[in-house]
């Protein structure tokens, strides 16, 4: 079987035309998959290390969860921007906060295509 080349956060930023809001120090992290949810306990219970989390939640607690779960990055959908304390926490944790104008369905579909 052909092994796909490892995809990094920087690769998905380029390929999906994402905005990088914060946490640039984590841009070379490897991406193993994606997870879509706006329920924090759902992410806490089911997301896996290395996944990119698509959400419309823009507060600081998102970064606590992303960091505890060793997620690769967070993508904010529909043009949402991180609250100041979310962006600051993303710098502290070194987990990038990215953004897109697209909605969750569209960006998750493209991400799936890239990673499958």
């Amino acid at each position, binding site marked *: 079987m052909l092994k796909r080349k490892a995809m990094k956060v920087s690769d998905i930023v380029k390929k999906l035309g994402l905005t990088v809001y914060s946490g640039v120090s984590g841009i070379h992290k490897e991406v193993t998959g994606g997870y879509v949810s706006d329920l*924090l*306990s759902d992410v806490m*219970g089911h997301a896996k290390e290395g996944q990119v989390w698509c959400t419309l939640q823009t507060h600081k607690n998102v970064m606590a969860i992303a960091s505890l779960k060793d997620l690769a990055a967070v993508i904010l959908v529909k043009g949402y921007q991180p609250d100041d304390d979310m962006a600051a926490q993303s710098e502290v944790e070194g987990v990038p906060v990215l953004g897109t104008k697209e909605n969750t369905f569209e960006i998750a579909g493209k991400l799936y295509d890239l990673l499958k």
Partner: protein
Amino acid sequence: MMHFEFDIEGGDFSKAGFASSQLKRILKQLVTDHKVVKKTVVALYEAEVNVVAHAYSGKVIIDIDTDKIQIKVNDKGPGIEDIEQAMEEGYSTASEQVREMGFGAGMGLANIKNNSDEFNITSEVGVGTQLEIIAYLEII
């Protein structure tokens, strides 16, 4: 072997997760079994959030031994009348404001149970709630 305590303030979501991120930092240096670290921080995070979302104040007490991690989370708060119902996935009394933040899915206690080796909960209405979370470490 090691003992840590953290205070939790009810209602202050900006500090929710502080004890769990500290615990993660500590365990990463002590424990080689990453699965145990991951599970345990998930359990503690949910317990912390419950104090912030549902109680007035609380204390986290962590004891790390060579063969296990024991965490107690004791709060002063309204307590839980029906623990069995509270444990049901999807049951939540969280406020609208808390739900808008993405908390209050009613999955927290289930997450704690699923991510601990032993989980005990006791509660007294009008007084507070006590959790005990135990994770066993594999010593090779």
